């Protein structure tokens, strides 16, 4: 066997209070797709940043193609043939595709020549992209293509992809996999980071599993059962959430022709959304990020106002009602972004309880705050949802993602909503916390509340929804019963791949 492309031995990196990587060793062979598997917080990101030169390890060494490899900065890593596609894209909204690509290159050619190269590469790898478009106007899938093409133009030997499919429709995933296979044939190695096991079984040749910063297993994903990999990743057997059965009641929430302009630059406008939601049901809304999820959630929460009749709550027109008025009625919401939207990072959990629970939990009287009651409510949320924290006086930003998410979802559930809208309820949350949250949502529906769950995670929606609708470019498809809906049909509902036709080539 030839020398592996990349050899990691004994990589260790500690941050105050956490060991992100402990003695991590594994090899990536030439021309293989190597999976790096692990939960959120398992240390995948730190490891990848080490390889890309963004983080310097405390101990351990790397060898690239047999030679010692210790990039001091991304520039050095790129010069050695290591390229990376980030999970949160490292793109610049106000700049064109070509400019974005140029920024990621060591010695970019003139912009017009680069544009021609971009067209060429995008054609040959089946990733259509117009170099003159402004990145802020692109869909998530197209933005990812910008990143990939930026990497490909440097003819990398190792391509690192951090959760590449989390923003793609099933069809777009298929296109991406075609590209990856093509690259593998050309001898490029790919380090593929994911926690989606089926994908890894489809595309990867070998896998390394991380847990709490340590390597806990290596396997051939083609021959290993998904369940075995999951158990190594999580370290325990997980139960899937369950619910008794769907009895639905009266219509509680009605959307009639809900339309709204994009609230900010590079946002999405909502177009004529119709919907009826009944008590006791869970409606799953799927879609790729940036198709109007945030805007729909804001229109429902009252952060964005629309014409009165566009939203009815139990027959009452509430399109113009504010956030507090809607809360008082029983329409509650938990936004996607935990830090800075659902919770104020520098404020204590007690203060964050006050953030939304004032009207329904009677935490404010004559404009004066009732700190004792607020603390009591925060303590109830902490206890009931098993939020791991020293106490309600802790600042929100000191909590891990999973714990804070349990707190913000729990905060709404404990207020006994009649309608609860949650946006990406388990995004970036570890498996145990995700299971807790899903179970709590199902229990809430069981108790008679109506739920809208907006999520990019189709597995999640298939698990907990009664009906499914897709959001695409601000339009909502007609909801269909979840039972019996296949992944291909869901893919079609999500609008398929964006711009399947080759990019327009203009003179």
């Amino acid at each position, binding site marked *: 066997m030839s020398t592996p492309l990349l050899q990691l031995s004994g990589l260790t990196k500690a941050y105050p209070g956490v060991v992100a990587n402990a003695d991590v060793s594994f090899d990536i062979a030439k021309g293989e797709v190597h999976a790096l598997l692990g939960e959120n917080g398992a240390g995948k990101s730190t490891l990848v940043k080490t390889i890309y030169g963004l*983080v310097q390890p405390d101990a351990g060494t790397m060898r690239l193609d047999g030679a010692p490899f210790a990039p001091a900065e991304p520039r050095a890593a790129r010069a050695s043939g290591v390229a990376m596609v980030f999970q949160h894209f490292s793109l610049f909204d106000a700049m064109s595709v070509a400019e974005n690509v140029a920024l990621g290159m060591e010695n970019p050619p003139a912009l017009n020549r680069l544009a021609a190269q971009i067209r060429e590469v995008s054609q040959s790898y089946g990733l259509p992209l117009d170099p003159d478009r402004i990145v802020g106007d692109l869909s998530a899938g197209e933005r990812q293509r910008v990143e990939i093409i930026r990497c490909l133009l440097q003819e990398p030997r190792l391509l690192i992809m951090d959760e590449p499919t989390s923003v793609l429709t099933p069809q777009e995933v298929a296109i991406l996999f075609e590209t990856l296979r093509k690259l593998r044939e050309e001898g490029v190695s790919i380090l593929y980071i994911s926690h989606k096991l089926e994908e890894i079984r489809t595309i990867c040749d070998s896998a390394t599993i991380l847990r709490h910063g340590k390597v806990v297993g290596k396997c051939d994903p083609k021959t290993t059962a998904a369940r075995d990999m999951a158990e190594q990743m999580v370290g325990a057997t997980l139960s899937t959430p369950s619910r008794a059965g769907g009895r639905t009641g009266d219509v509680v929430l009605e959307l009639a022709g809900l339309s709204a302009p994009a609230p900010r630059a590079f946002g999405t406008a909502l177009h004529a959304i119709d919907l009826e939601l009944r008590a006791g049901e869970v409606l799953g809304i799927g879609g790729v990020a940036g198709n109007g999820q945030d805007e729909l959630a804001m229109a429902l929460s009252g952060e964005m106002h629309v014409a009165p009749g566009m939203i009815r709550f139990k027959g009452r027109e509430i399109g113009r009602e504010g*956030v507090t008025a809607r809360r008082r009625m029983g329409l509650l919401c938990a936004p996607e972004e935990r830090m800075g939207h659902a919770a104020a990072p520098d*404020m204590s959990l007690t203060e964050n309880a006050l*953030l939304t629970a004032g009207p329904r939990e009677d935490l404010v009287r004559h404009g004066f705050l009732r700190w004792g009651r607020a603390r009591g409510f925060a303590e109830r949320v902490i206890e009931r949802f098993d939020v791991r924290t020293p106490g309600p006086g802790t600042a929100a930003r*000191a909590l891990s993602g999973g714990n804070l998410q349990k707190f913000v979802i729990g905060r709404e559930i404990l207020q006994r909503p009649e309608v609860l809208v949650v946006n990406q309820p388990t995004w970036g949350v570890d498996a145990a916390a995700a299971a807790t949250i899903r179970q709590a949502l199902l229990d809430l529906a069981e108790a008679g509340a109506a739920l809208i769950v907006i999520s990019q995670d189709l597995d999640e929606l298939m698990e907990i929804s009664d009906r499914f609708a897709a959001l695409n470019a601000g339009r909502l498809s007609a909801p269909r019963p979840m039972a019996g809906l296949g992944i291909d049909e869901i893919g079609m509902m999500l609008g398929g791949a964006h711009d399947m036709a080759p990019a327009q080539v203009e003179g």
Partner: protein
Amino acid sequence: MIRLERRPEPSRAWTLATPFVAVALTMVAGGLLFALLGKDPIEAIRTIFWDPLFGDFASYSRPQLLVKAGPLILIAIGLSLGFRAGIWNIGAEGQYILGAIFAAATGLAFYPAESWLIFPAMTLAGALGGLLWAMIPALLRVRFGTNEVLVSLMLVYVAEALLASMALGLLRNPDGMGFPGSRNLAQYPSAANPELIVGTGMHWGVVLALVAVIVGQVVMTRHQLGFRVRLAGQSPRAAVFGGVNPSWLVVVCMGLSGALAGLAGMFEVAGPAGRLGIDFNVGYGFTAIIVAFLGRLNPIGILLAGLLMALTYIGGELAQLQMNLPLAAIQMFQGMLLFFLLAIDVLTNFSFRFGRRAVA
């Protein structure tokens, strides 16, 4: 290498310690500055910080402490509310001037009638003048998205021109033999804002400043408005989600700070200054910005910071008289204090780590 690491939670100890450390560092740096100017640093520091309270002329300078601290505290309390919410009213100086103009015009309109109603009417007029002047940047921001920093500041220059035109025109003392400036309100009993306890410098403006400190403290810690203000400043999106209307907040914060600045101007023109002259405003509106930050945007802190800053004013004048130290040096000294405060502030949210750095 030294690098910064974010603390999981803001450090309470450093929040409290920062102003004191900043004052100490400023004294050291200020001492160096005075030494560079060829003055004895120890004597300069003593003249500025000690003599106004306990020196030979303390009986004259001590009352000045409250006279100068009063408007600073009153304005700073108002500003702190907006600053906490991320609403930057930089034009308090202009609102202070307008408060004085409105109040003086109201008082002079009744001259020489005597009635106990005149003083309250002037108080209302002063608050209204500041409020209206502050509403210009507030409403422009709400309606057109105009930057309130720039507009409120531009209006300071407009207010100064307006003050000059009033002192030279409409409000000029008809018995003043052509000199600029209004009649002396301090000598018009129904309009005067007198020293309440002789030898203390205490006047109605100082009383109101103390009331503002107490009310401010209650609002910040116990009232929904204070909570909303803090929320809007820390996470604007979370604030909207929590039911805060950002436009409403801009109007309330700007309006309150404008009204308080206007009141400060009113008490000044009817008391210590007495008359509305071309050089009526001496920069309280700008110094109050330093006071607000030095007091950590906290009412009690502002009370202490206002007294300290008033001390440097009086001490600075004393140092100018006794040591021939330029007044500008004191201005620099005050600016330096704010710099040190801002620099040390980093320790509230970050801690220094020594060791290999990741990547800068």
